[in-house]
Structures are given as C-alpha cells and as structure tokens.
C-alpha cells in the first residue's frame, strides 16, 4: 500500500490538506499526517517515498498516483528552499508525526533532557550561556544569563513560563513548532525546570491558535511521566496582543487584566505570583534540547556572527513568492532572504518595502538589503529583528497608510497603563491623517483664548505637523513602559523617512 505523508499543520489545513488526504485514502493509500516542511507555497504538499507534489487539490490525486502530475517537485530534501537552510530547532519539520513519541525518540528526542538531568543545574546553565543562545521573542537577552538569575534567586517556588503568544503579523514559527514538534518545546521546558529548580510550567498560547492548543494538550498527557515531577499546563490567551509582553503575560496567567508591569523587579526575581520565573519564547526553549546534546552548545556557538549565535527560524511572509519557514545561521542578508530564498514578490511586481520584526519593526528599503541578519546590525540601522518575521510588500503598498495602521494597531492593542502609548497612539493616527490630507491644524477654541499666551495663534503648517509627529514618536519611544508603545515609532518613522511621498 502506498504511504502518503501530508502535513496537518494549520496552514496546510487552511489550504485544503484534509480534502487531499481523504482523496488519497479513497484511492487506497495509507495517509500519515506529519509536520510541515515549511514550504508554504507548496501546501498541501504530499510526500511519497521522499518525492514531493504540491500544491495539491483533491483533483490532482489521480495524476500524482499515476506519476503524470505536473506538480511534482522532485525529492523534497533536495529542494533549493531547504538546501540553503540549516535546521536545528526545526530539524524534524516535515519528517515526524507531531504526537508520536516513537518518532520523537527515534530522532534524538529526550537526549538533551537525559543528559541535563545527569548534570548539576549550574552546569546546565553554564552550557546554555556557552551556546550564546539569545531570547528569540524579540529582545534578544542571553537565555543562560536569565536562567542563572532564576537559579540563584530565592523563592518559595519557581516557574517556567513559555511565551507562545505569537501575535506579530508575519510570524508563525512558534505555531509551526507547537503543532509540528510539541515534544521539543516540552523537553526544552523540562531542561529549564531542572536548571533553575522549577516544578511547574505554563505555556501561554494565544487563542488564535486552536490547532496548536489541540496538539499541546495531548502531547503533555503523553509525556507527563517522562518530564515528571515537572508539570506543565497550557493557558489560553484571550485575544490581547499586549499579552505577548512578558509581564503582561504573567498578569494574564494570574487572572488579571493583561497590563504591563513596571520593571524592575525583573520577572526572573519576582515573576509569576511573585516568584522567580523564567519567561522564554517558544523558539528559545525549543532550541535547548539540541544545545544540551553532546557538543550541541559548541556547535550552536560556532554558527552565526558576532554576538548573534546559532540559527534563527526566519519567517517569510506577506507578498512573497516562496513564503514559509527558513531556519538559517545568523548573518544572511535581507536581499538573499527576500530575493534568493523568497523568490521576490508573489505578484511579480518590484519589492517596495520589507517589514522585519512584526508590527513594531521598521520598514526597510530595497537599497538596505545588504543588511546582515544580526541583532546588533539591525539595531544600528534603526531596525529590529524581533521574532524573525519578514513581511514583503510590492510597489502598490501605501507606506503612509502602513504608518497610520501602526499607530491604529497600537491604539487598539494598548493595555492603557502608560500615557505615551495609550494617548500617543490615538494622537498619532490623527496627526498622520492631518498630514496626509495636506492641511495643518487651526488653533482650537481653548488655544485661541487670550490667556493662552504660549499656544500658537496661527494654523500649524504641514511641516510643523510632521515635526510634531517626530516629536510624538520620540516621546513614545523613550517614555512607554513596554515595547508596544516604545517600538511603534519604528514602522512610523521608517515609513516617513523612506517614503515621504506616501504621506502627501
């Protein structure tokens, strides 16, 4: 009987993978549901004996089985999209059944945990520090240093919290990992628990990811004995983008409004329920099992550039021909990502802008495409890597509109705790609207009062309005409590700087 492997990743399902799977079954094949290779333009992708076909519809099944399908892509592992990658965190992508403990163990699963548990917690922390792994959620803080802080902190109990509130547009690597390789995340958390002395863990997943939740819960049941005495519970978010911010996330788990906490105290010292807490992103924790295998830490440290070590799962999204997951060592240029791996725009039109790092990331122009993927290089260019999302726009994009959207999004998702973000974002939308409608603003009723000596009595010019927007962005950047208000100026100012004509 022919064995056909088709992904049950949410994206494959959204593109019709279930119908294709049923059609193969109806044709007498045995269908195995595996994780996704991350070649999303080819989903639903079917694999028979290592050969691939995609993107398939149920109507293509007969021709695939006859060997006459024009959708054949040859041997999947040799595909140029995959050949250019180096997969450590996503080593199992496309190859294993997500909920199969046998598949997991057969592909090196639990090796890292077994080795870590044979070591002293301090040694585990030192290895993670030596690997150079930095937090993949966006801030890029060295993971091992955070762990060491929690290990050394005194508290009645300690927690491991996995931040799986992947709200950034243009990112889906957390989702793919939770759906495709849930045991890797669980193993990473169990290693973290051993390293810092925690007995309870939480995975905070956004409610927009029902398929990830549906994979994590049974996965936790299946391996409960393997990770005991450590226990993990899945907590489902409730549609608040700001809960991806770590302190807001902790409040949300505690059953409170997802408002940001002022730091200090750091969550590593006073986190969940006031106890020392490791809060790490899905990709950070999922990188740990590989790092803890023999030689894993030094291999990780040997990859990448400067202070950005190891590999980064980069997500190619938006208007890109070959969208999907590209895990590669740091240092790859944006041009290589967008043009060589991504194949340019899906519409075939020239690239106008690329937003790296989600809704809070800067818009980057094609003439900056030699920028290497590296935390420091992006920081120096006034941009950020964030969670590794790369969203491509073609020349029809209205960058003034995108700047307005950034402010609008911040206003919609602000937790309301700090003024620059709560009020600034709304004023930002109004300002951009005024700038785009070409007019300045006449003095208001109060401003016109004779006793308001310092208020301008002349209408503000367009140039003054632009200066005011820049001023507002500076205030938001420097005075907001968290990255939502603090980084919204990145997309706004980069759009204003690079495409002033779109604000006319």
């Amino acid at each position, binding site marked *: 009987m022919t064995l056909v492997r088709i992904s049950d990743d*949410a*994206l494959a*399902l*959204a*593109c019709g993978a279930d119908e294709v799977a049923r059609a193969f079954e109806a044709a007498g094949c045995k269908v195995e549901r595996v994780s996704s290779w991350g070649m*999303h*333009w080819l*989903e639903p992708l079917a694999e028979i004996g290592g050969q691939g076909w995609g993107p398939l519809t149920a109507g293509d099944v007969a021709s695939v089985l006859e060997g006459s399908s024009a959708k054949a892509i040859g041997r999947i592992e040799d595909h140029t999209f995959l050949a250019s990658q180096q997969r450590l965190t996503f080593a199992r992508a496309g190859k294993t059944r997500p909920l199969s403990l046998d598949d997991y163990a057969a592909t090196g699963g639990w090796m890292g945990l077994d080795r870590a548990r044979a070591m002293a917690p301090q040694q585990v922390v030192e290895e993670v520090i030596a690997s150079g792994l930095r937090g993949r959620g966006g801030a890029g803080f060295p993971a091992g240093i955070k762990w060491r802080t929690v290990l050394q902190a005194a508290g009645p109990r300690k927690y491991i919290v996995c931040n799986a509130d*992947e*709200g*950034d*547009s*243009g*990112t*889906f690597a957390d*989702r793919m990992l939770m759906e495709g390789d849930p045991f890797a995340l669980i193993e990473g958390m169990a290693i973290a628990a051993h390293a810092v002395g925690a007995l*309870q863990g939480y995975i905070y997943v956004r*409610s*927009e*990811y*029902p*398929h990830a939740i549906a994979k994590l819960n049974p996965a936790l049941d299946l391996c409960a004995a393997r990770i005991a005495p450590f226990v993990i*519970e899945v*907590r*489902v*978010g*409730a*549609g*608040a*983008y700001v809960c991806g911010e770590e302190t807001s996330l902790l409040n*949300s*788990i*505690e*059953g*409170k*409004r*997802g408002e940001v906490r002022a730091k200090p105290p750091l969550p590593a010292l006073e986190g969940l*329920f006031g106890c020392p807490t490791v809060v790490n992103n899905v990709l950070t924790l999922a990188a740990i099992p590989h790092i803890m295998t023999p030689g894993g830490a030094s291999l990780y440290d040997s990859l990448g550039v400067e202070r950005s070590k190891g590999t980064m799962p980069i*997500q190619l*999204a*938006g*208007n*890109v021909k070959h*969208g*999907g997951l590209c895990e590669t060592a740091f240092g790859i240029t944006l041009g290589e990502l967008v043009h060589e791996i991504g194949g340019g725009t*899906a519409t075939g039109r020239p690239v106008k802008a690329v*937003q790296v790092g*989600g*809704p809070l990331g800067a818009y980057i122009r094609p003439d900056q495409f030699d920028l290497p993927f590296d935390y420091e290089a992006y920081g120096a260019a006034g941009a950020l890597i964030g969670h590794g*999302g790369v*969203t*491509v*726009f*073609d020349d029809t*994009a209205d960058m003034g509109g*995108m700047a307005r*959207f950034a402010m609008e*999004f911040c206003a919609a*998702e602000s*937790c309301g705790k700090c003024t620059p973000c709560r009020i600034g974002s709304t004023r930002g939308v109004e300002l951009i609207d005024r700038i785009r409608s070409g007019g300045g603003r006449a003095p208001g009723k109060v401003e016109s009062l004779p006793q308001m000596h310092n208020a301008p009595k002349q209408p503000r010019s367009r140039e003054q309005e632009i200066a005011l927007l820049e001023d507002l962005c500076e205030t938001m950047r420097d005075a907001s409590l968290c990255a939502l208000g603090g980084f919204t100026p990145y997309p706004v100012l980069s759009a204003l700087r690079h495409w002033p004509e779109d604000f006319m």
Partner: protein
Amino acid sequence: MSVAARIDEIVAAHAHREGPLLPVLHEVQAAFGCVDEEAEAAIAKALNLSRAEIHGVVSFYHDFTAKLDPRPCVELCRAEACQARGVEALVAAAEAAAGARVRLKTVYCLGLCSASPAARIGDTLHARLDEMRLARLIENA
C-alpha cells in the same frame, strides 16, 4: 440549570488551578456566548473577588463579550502580512456579503502570513482568499 449553578460548576472545575479566572471566563464565554453582568456577578461570588475585578478582566480581552451575538462570526485578518496581499480590497465585498446576518470581525494575525489573506470561522481556517472565495465563505457561514 440556572446561570449561577452552571457557573458554580465551571468555577469548581477550575478551582484547582493557580489563577483560574481566564480558564473560567473562556468556559463561560463558550457556554453562554458572552459574559454578561449576571455571569460576572456569579463568577465574582464563586471566586470571592469583587465584581469590578471580574468586569475589569472581561472588558480587557477581545475574546470576552458582554452581550450575546447569536450571528455566525467570520474573523478576517487585517494585519500587515494580509494587507501586503491586498486584504483591504476585499473588505467592501466581505461587508456586503455579511450584511446584517453575519458578524464580520477584524482580527490581527492568524499565523497564516505566508498564505494570506486569511480568515477563521470557528476553529476552521481558510487561506489564500480572494474576493469570490471570501464572499462564498461568508455566505455559507
């Protein structure tokens, strides 16, 4: 069963958790289609919290609604990656197809950014939408 009795049951099922409020609210929202004043009061009583504390949490999160809306709901992603593939051009037709019968809700990111535009109905996801496919989804919702 009365609302209060059902809520007591839900709270009891989650009482063993640390910080049980969000799981409780999710289940109440699923059971009643909303978390209204009556439910807030019952949850407050069962968890020994003030009604203000419960209302503060309910009103903070987009997933919890104060009023029951029995209409089918289609969630359309309008974040950057979907905008890059032209979701804004589909909105007018989607609104026309939805009319008053279907609730068209804007969400920001369903995690299908490499196959955008995307929409969600219940737990079913749809990607690579164009005007016709989206209109058909809404009509069949």
